[in-house]
């Protein structure tokens, strides 16, 4: 009973379907996570010299409040396993809603819960990536921009943003790949992604060697595609 290739061939249609769903969750997840992470990262930085000085006049309290909210979010998500987050959003949240508002039967379907989990989870890690990248921008460049009398918004979009973005690409690439692989955990809430498909085929024919090899290759192809597109993007941006 060696490696029998025909089991791989047989499994391809079902695995491709799973891979499609994995890819779908990942892409929406990392785009959403990047948006949430950028927002949370900038909130985390509000009121610090990294984004042009600590003086916000009457809005100082707002800067401090958003900083605290961002820290709370980041620590909560980084401090709990993603599988627990998925379980919470899928199983516990409907109960919480029922207990607090009395509304019954409000729940996300498994796929939506999976996407929300990835967005929230990746967002927390990306927030720290954004913060690190922004803080790594030379303070002198920030001052050079401020000295021209441009607005804080212009400073962030024209000076800090582009420089920080290039620096953020390698760690963001890491997070993209981690998020893609994390989708395999949604097997626990019954999303028919790649790992789940593999598991189901395996349960029917017991060909663990062939099926898990094929699943692994599918993941490798997808992570390589992500890594290559990031490498391409990094090369396109001409800084230093």
């Amino acid at each position: 009973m060696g490696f029998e290739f025909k089991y791989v061939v047989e499994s391809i249609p079902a695995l491709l379907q799973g891979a499609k769903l994995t890819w779908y969750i990942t892409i929406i997840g990392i785009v959403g996570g990047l948006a949430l992470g950028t927002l949370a990262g900038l909130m985390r930085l509000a009121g610090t010299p990294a984004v042009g000085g600590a003086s916000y006049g009457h809005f100082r309290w707002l800067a401090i409040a958003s900083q605290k909210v961002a820290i709370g979010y980041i620590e909560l998500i980084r401090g709990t396993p993603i599988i627990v987050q998925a379980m919470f959003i899928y199983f516990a949240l409907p109960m919480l809603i029922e207990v607090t508002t009395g509304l019954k039967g409000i729940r996300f379907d498994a796929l939506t819960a999976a996407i929300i989990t990835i967005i929230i989870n990746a967002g927390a890690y990306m927030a720290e990536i954004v913060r690190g990248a922004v803080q790594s921008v030379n303070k002198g460049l920030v001052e050079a921009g401020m000295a021209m009398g441009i607005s804080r918004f212009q400073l962030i979009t024209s000076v800090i943003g582009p420089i920080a973005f290039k620096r953020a690409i390698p760690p963001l690439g890491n997070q993209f790949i981690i998020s893609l692989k994390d989708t395999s955990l949604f097997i626990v809430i019954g999303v028919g992604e790649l790992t789940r498909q593999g598991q189901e085929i395996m349960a029917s024919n017991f060909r663990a060697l062939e099926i898990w090899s094929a699943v692994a290759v599918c993941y490798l192809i997808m992570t390589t595609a992500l890594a290559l597109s990031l490498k391409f993007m990094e090369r396109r941006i001409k800084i230093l």
Partner: protein
Amino acid sequence: MSALIEFRDVGKSFGPVEVLHNIDLTIDQGEVVVLVGPSGSGKSTLLRCINGLEMVTSGELVVDGIHLPRQKRRIREVRQEVGMVFQLFHLFPHMSALDNVAFGPSKVRSMSREEAHDVAHDLLKKVGLADRSHHYPAELSGGQQQRVAIARALAINPKIMLFDEPTSALDPELREEVLNVMIAVAEQGITMVVVTHEMSFASKAGSRLLFMDAGRIAEDGDPQTLLRNPSSERLQNFLQHVGY
């Protein structure tokens, strides 16, 4: 002649450390003020107060009619009339030389892309770098970067130019090209405040020399006279140290 910059009993401290004490200083339009002094004497801080990169902590500073810190919410208006050149150039690394210079006019003076590029072209020509306009900062020598930085600061057509040790990070042979550009700027009649150790610039282009010591202005006078006959012992010592 009217006062463009006026320090009235200004003090500046960073936490418990007092860096400037009771500064009274009036700078008129067209003056080229050279600020010298030992490191830690407060000259850079004084310079950075003028465009609000540091906010004064006591007294009052009036720059182009705006009172600091009372009207510090109008700091952007001050900065839009004040160009600044830094010791380490701080050109935007993701923009070409041309875009660096065009940045101010397009963002602060709301010029169109073409107008801003025209202004930038003219200025790069003036600093002798017309042929480098599409190079990125990393592709330029230190002296070239600093000349681009001067063009960038001039591009918003400021009333005041601040220079914070503009030649200190450069090799001796590159200093000359930057100093020549600065002398040309001074000859245009723009008000300048220059922190430097280049006494040759002070004597050639300066209209006034300030010697700072321990957060106070210790000497204030005509550069030629002060450099030829330094009255105080502290200034004599200092000049000996910088090899003048």
